[in-house]
């Protein structure tokens, strides 16, 4: 009895020791998460305050503590301007369009890629398509500039030779929705296409065999076997994209139009607005934080809604 007790004590001691050592393993990342992710969450209070520098002892924490509470004033100011409506319209509008186009094109490409019987060609296509995903937006902006540069761009030179005059691309709003859409599709289609392709290759081969024994044509196989099997993947990516519907890819909207100020009506999104306000001298910190909080909360709610809608349609496809 005494022996067994001793052993138990010893093993529980060892258990404690083991857990302490495992705790030291999570420690560095935990500190990082606290400092760079959880601490800024308290900064959300700035959205409800009139942020002023506390002159007696300036410092971020003191400034926040001693600033006056103003309730939802920052949000009111944010939504009072026409600029803010435009940037919300741009953020949500581009996202909706791109979620739809991205879904249709990537699924179509993934199915086509899967139908290509020559394995070498399929592999080469896959490698080429995926390449743009690894290129930074800074580099992409140079690619776009090679076409639209006001003095030597390829398209500009062509316009000059054809019509004697060229569009001043970086100061004309009209073509930018299309340019941004193309840039986004160029960079991201390959990535989502490959996600769908891995889902397709995971489909049980016997389903195809059964279909062809029943005399299904290629189109029928795609329609009745491939597409239904992609449902879960489509739902997952859809929910994730919808939860980011109030966020935008900063690099795309900042670098590709070269941060041009004269086409802001079609290129300004919530993220570029926050950066512009943050980097401007005397920018309103309360309002920029409010914009971030708005993005976060609405995005979270959107994700919950999307998830419950998916759950209602097809319980197996929802995220949680």
């Amino acid at each position, binding site marked *: 009895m005494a022996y067994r007790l001793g052993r138990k004590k010893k093993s529980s001691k060892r258990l404690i020791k083991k857990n302490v050592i495992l705790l030291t393993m*999570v420690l*560095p990342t935990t500190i990082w998460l606290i400092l760079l992710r959880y601490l800024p969450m308290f900064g959300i209070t700035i959205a409800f305050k009139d942020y002023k520098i506390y002159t007696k002892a300036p410092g971020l924490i003191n400034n926040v503590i001693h600033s006056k509470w103003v309730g939802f004033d920052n949000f009111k100011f944010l939504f009072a301007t026409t600029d803010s409506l435009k940037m919300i319209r741009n953020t949500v509008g581009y996202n909706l369009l791109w979620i739809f186009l991205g879904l249709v094109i990537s699924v179509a490409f993934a199915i086509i890629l899967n139908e*290509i019987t020559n394995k070498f060609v399929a592999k080469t296509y896959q490698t080429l398509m995926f390449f743009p995903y690894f290129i930074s937006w800074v580099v992409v902006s140079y690619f776009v500039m090679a076409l639209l540069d006001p003095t030597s761009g390829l398209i500009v030179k062509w316009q000059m030779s054809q019509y004697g005059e060229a569009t001043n691309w970086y100061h004309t709003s009209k073509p930018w929705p299309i340019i941004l859409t193309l840039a986004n599709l160029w960079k991201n289609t390959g990535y989502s296409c490959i996600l769908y392709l891995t889902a397709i290759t995971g489909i049980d081969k016997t389903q195809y065999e059964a279909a062809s024994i029943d005399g299904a044509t290629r189109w029928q196989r795609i329609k009745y076997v491939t597409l239904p099997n992609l449902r879960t993947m489509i739902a997952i990516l859809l929910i994730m994209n919808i939860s980011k519907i109030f966020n935008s890819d900063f690099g795309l909207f900042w670098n590709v139009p070269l941060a041009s100020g004269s086409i802001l009506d079609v290129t300004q999104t919530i993220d570029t607005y926050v950066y512009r306000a943050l980097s401007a001298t005397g920018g309103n910190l309360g309002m920029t934080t409010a914009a971030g909080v708005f993005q976060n909360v609405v995005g979270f709610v959107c994700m919950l809604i999307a998830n419950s809608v998916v759950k209602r349609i097809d319980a197996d496809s929802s995220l949680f």
Partner: protein
Amino acid sequence: MKKRIGKSRLGKPSIISEISFYLILGMFCAACIIPFIFVVIISFSSESSIREIGYSFSPQEWSASAYEYVFQLGDQLWRSYFNSFFVTIVGTASSLLMTIMYSYALFRKDFKFRNFFTFFAFFTTLFGGGLAPTFMVCKQLLHLSNNYAALIVPALISPFNIIIMRTFFTTSIPEELIEAASIDGSGEYKTLFKIIIPIAKPGIATVGLLTALSYWSEWFLAMLYIKDSKYIPLQYLLMKMQNQADFLFKNASVIGVEASKMLRDLPSASLRMALVVFIVVPIAFAYPFFQRYIISGLTIGSVKG
């Protein structure tokens, strides 16, 4: 032979649909790679050709002068190249170490606080302070400004990578192995570094490559936190050159004396494109070899995340 039987069973694919499949994807793939080829051609065009007919797929005159200038340009360029490499190597190494240790603890079923720390990391993907408070905390409280830490620390941890890493651990490491190691009296750290890490190499390669790529492509952190040109990485240098075409002229003092003499007849257009080539080439050459790792990582991350 087997394949042919299978195919005839699946019904004859019509030639038209077959050809159109190859064409549609072929066109898109060409569009993916042509911009890069175009930039390479521009970087090899002579300045007079660019002045005359603009950027063109068939320049009037070829010239490697842009590259000669790149090599003679001196301080700022090499400094930025060094910064990019330094940040990528140090950042990836520290990020990997932290990610491996955190995910390993999350993978261990006998870790009491497993659920708590899993939630602790993943909650940050659902909710966050946003750019403005994060920027304030980094700059004012943590003094991440005008130093290498500002380029490395904010991108150290990604919950996405933790998911990938943990999945690799659960799929490749049998639990008995850890028990056996602990019975043999191997300490936790020794087990991790001597036994687990060698087994989980493919997973580590995946996460390491993703991290290295994101550090190499990083310009946003530089834009937020770096004012001193000493710490500017290559991507941000390129961005600055674009925003102010005469960046080199303005920074003649930084670039060096002998360089400022050449600035008068500097091939600025082709030079910038040569820099783009310099950034893309390491990725373009490394990527086909690592594609497999990266795809497996991205698939796990997106599905489990």
